[in-house]
């Protein structure tokens, strides 16, 4: 047990004593000497507990309670009459004789259930639970592809369903064996096949058509499998942690944190191990595995085939997926592979989300000296502030977070054994810093301006990385996206509005108008579904289609762009509507 873990336990014991009624003095005097430094934290906890608690205004309380009850009443009245009839019939059936029959039936069912559980897996194995739902997340049932509904925390997602996350949204799927899949923003994943089999072995086949997913797969039992298919390439594992990014309809990127992943495409297969990554293009064999890198910083040189950012040169070719049109001086995020010959190859370049330097690489430790580590051919210095986790040794795969010093040396901030199970945390290097030379362009401050001056916000805020991605995704101008953002809409809302517009062949302005009129996003979505139902289309794809251009540049397409930019949207309704 390390020092921090011991302190954590001692602190918790002290807090538990406080909770059970011990006085602060008693708790502090009982602290062992090695935990004396915890005294200020314990005092603070006691003070926080003793604070008088804020309360809502009683008038607001009563009003809100009534509104909530009204909402429940409306919801209850809206329940289908068919359900009421069913309940009525159920009550009639439940007579004394009926009850006996039901009990016999339940006993028979329970006796069969034990065997069935072994044969067919645990009950509910063909569904996963959706947790950590943040932002706009949609679940589209297999039975009705047009009728997706916003996801609820804890919702069961059945085999065949599709989950879609909008901009700045995310969710986690928890499978019956404990395996987990995290969907990043702008992702789409279908639970194509999900079963529990002999002895509880899980068989999962997921189809990922967009975005990025991270999978933590518990070791599968015999007969189990876990596959992720993308338009380019398929990953199959037995028990591991890995990520899949669909860069576009032709390209996918696979990375492995721990374990082994077989990536297949066009009849070829490569095996990825700890820290490795590969890139797959539709119709071609997977690229050679390499160790992952990611770096965020200013694009210093843009001269094909070698670009340079954060003082690091990397190869950019026609296979590289580039989002937006980054120019020298822009802040970018680059993800790629370090090949066996030391060449850094960029697989994805996108606008950077933060004005912070972040430099990561993975590799195998080939040498350790007092203050110098050699990791897959790269020299990384260490100092007293370098965190080393998981006791990595020569031959082990590690993940490194580092900064570049004035003299060009790389200084490791964190070296973590890839087998180390502790949660990965991000070491973000605040810039400028005395020792770091990586120049990072701060996020354009205009995106942070008060939103009562929309035009100014648009003009100065045109480089917001999420806006660039949305413009790319929905094939509209960056200015158009920013004009909505500067009127107070979140990027998740903008993504949703454009997606609904694309699905219903309206323009985004019409969708935002509905929102401004006070309708909730759920109501708007329902209206678009009904609209689609009234006017059936030959086919429907829930993903935004890049061939549909709902808005385009407002100047090129009058009447189809954003409305007047002077009004801030109405505050979303916070109370149920009558």
């Amino acid at each position: 047990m390390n020092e921090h873990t011991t302190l954590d336990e001692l602190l918790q014991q002290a807090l538990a004593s406080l909770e059970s009624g011990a006085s602060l003095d008693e708790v502090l005097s009982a602290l062992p000497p090695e935990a004396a430094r915890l005294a200020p934290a314990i005092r603070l906890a006691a003070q926080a507990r003793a604070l008088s608690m804020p309360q809502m205004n009683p008038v607001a309380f009563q009003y809100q309670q009534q509104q909530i009850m009204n909402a429940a009443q409306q919801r209850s009245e809206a329940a289908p009459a068919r359900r009421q009839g069913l309940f009525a019939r159920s009550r009639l059936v439940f007579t004394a004789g009926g009850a006996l029959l039901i009990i016999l039936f339940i006993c028979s069912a329970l006796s069969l259930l034990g065997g069935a559980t072994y044969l067919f897996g645990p009950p509910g194995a063909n569904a996963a639970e959706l947790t950590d739902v943040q932002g706009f997340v949609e679940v589209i049932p297999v039975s009705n592809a047009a009728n997706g509904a916003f996801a609820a925390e804890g919702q069961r997602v059945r085999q065949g369903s599709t989950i879609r996350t909008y901009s700045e949204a995310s969710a986690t799927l928890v499978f019956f064996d404990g395996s987990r899949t995290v969907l990043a923003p702008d992702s789409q994943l279908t639970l194509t096949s999900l079963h529990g089999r002999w002895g509880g072995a899980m068989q999962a086949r997921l189809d990922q058509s967009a975005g990025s997913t991270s999978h933590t797969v518990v070791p599968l039992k015999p007969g189990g499998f876990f596959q992720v298919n993308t338009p380019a390439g398929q990953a199959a594992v037995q028990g591991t942690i890995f990520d899949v990014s669909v860069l576009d309809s032709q390209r996918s990127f696979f990375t492995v944190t721990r374990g082994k992943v077989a990536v297949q495409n066009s009849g070829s297969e490569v095996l990825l191990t700890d820290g490795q990554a590969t890139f797959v293009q539709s119709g071609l064999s997977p690229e050679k595995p390499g160790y992952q890198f990611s770096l965020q910083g200013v694009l210093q040189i843009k001269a094909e085939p070698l670009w340079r950012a954060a003082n690091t040169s990397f190869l950019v070719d026609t296979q590289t997926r580039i989002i937006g049109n980054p120019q020298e001086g822009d802040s970018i995020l680059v993800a790629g592979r370090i090949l066996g010959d030391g060449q850094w190859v960029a697989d994805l370049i996108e606008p950077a989300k933060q004005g912070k330097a972040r430099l990561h690489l993975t590799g195998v430790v080939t040498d350790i000296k007092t203050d110098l580590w050699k990791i897959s051919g790269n020299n990384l210095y260490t100092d007293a502030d370098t965190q080393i986790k998981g006791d990595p040794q020569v031959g082990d795969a590690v993940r490194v977070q580092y900064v570049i010093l004035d003299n060009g040396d790389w200084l490791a901030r964190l070296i973590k054994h890839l087998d180390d199970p502790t949660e990965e945390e991000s070491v973000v290097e605040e810039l400028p810093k005395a020792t770091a030379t990586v120049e990072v362009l701060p996020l354009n401050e205009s995106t942070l301006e008060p939103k009562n001056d929309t035009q100014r916000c648009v003009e100065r805020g045109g480089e917001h990385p999420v806006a660039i991605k949305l413009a790319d995704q929905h094939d509209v101008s960056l200015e158009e996206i920013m004009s909505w953002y500067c009127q107070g809409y979140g990027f998740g809302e903008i993504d949703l509005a454009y997606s609904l517009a694309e699905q219903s062949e309206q323009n985004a302005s019409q969708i935002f108008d509905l929102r401004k009129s006070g309708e909730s996003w759920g109501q708007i979505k329902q209206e678009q579904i009904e609209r689609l139902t009234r006017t059936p289309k030959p086919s429907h794809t829930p993903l935004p289609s890049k061939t549909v251009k709902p808005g385009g540049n407002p100047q090129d397409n009058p009447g189809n762009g954003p409305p007047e930019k002077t009004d801030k949207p109405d505050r979303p309704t916070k109370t149920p509507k009558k």
Partner: protein
Amino acid sequence: MTDPSTPDLVNRAQKGSPAAVGALYARFQPNIYRYLFFRTGSAETAEDLTGEVFLRMVENLPEYRPTQAPFLAWLYRIARNLAIDHHRRTSAHPETEIDEELEATAEPLDDTIQVNLTHAALQQALASLQEAQRDVIVLRFIEGMNIADTAAVLHRTQDSIKALQRRALQALRQTLSDQ
């Protein structure tokens, strides 16, 4: 006559009883409001978001299963998601990621500095903490939630919550000392 139990109220609310919904609101509104008050730093926002939390409760009650999480933990999750969404919508600055581990290794706190804790000071100090640290302070020491339930709300292990609460208290202490 004793008050109905929470599972009983939830069960009746799931069957469409507005009275049960009203009772759930009365029972848990103080917790949710307090959480949002310290989480958002604004009484007005906390009031609005509290209403939103219970509207979402009404909408999502049919999907709630007691086996997944205690009812209050489920409500806190809704409140937390709304608070995060609210922060994203209104934040003047994008979220900055702070490395908790690095902060935790900061120099020991000066025990001689006395901290005068008030609502305002706590709100102000909480605003400067990392999101997870803010959550654990409010849930553990304002709401009085135990380690297990806090872990359930924040989707972390109990060990992780123990580590987080130490780092959060140290960071909060440091911030209050600097104020």
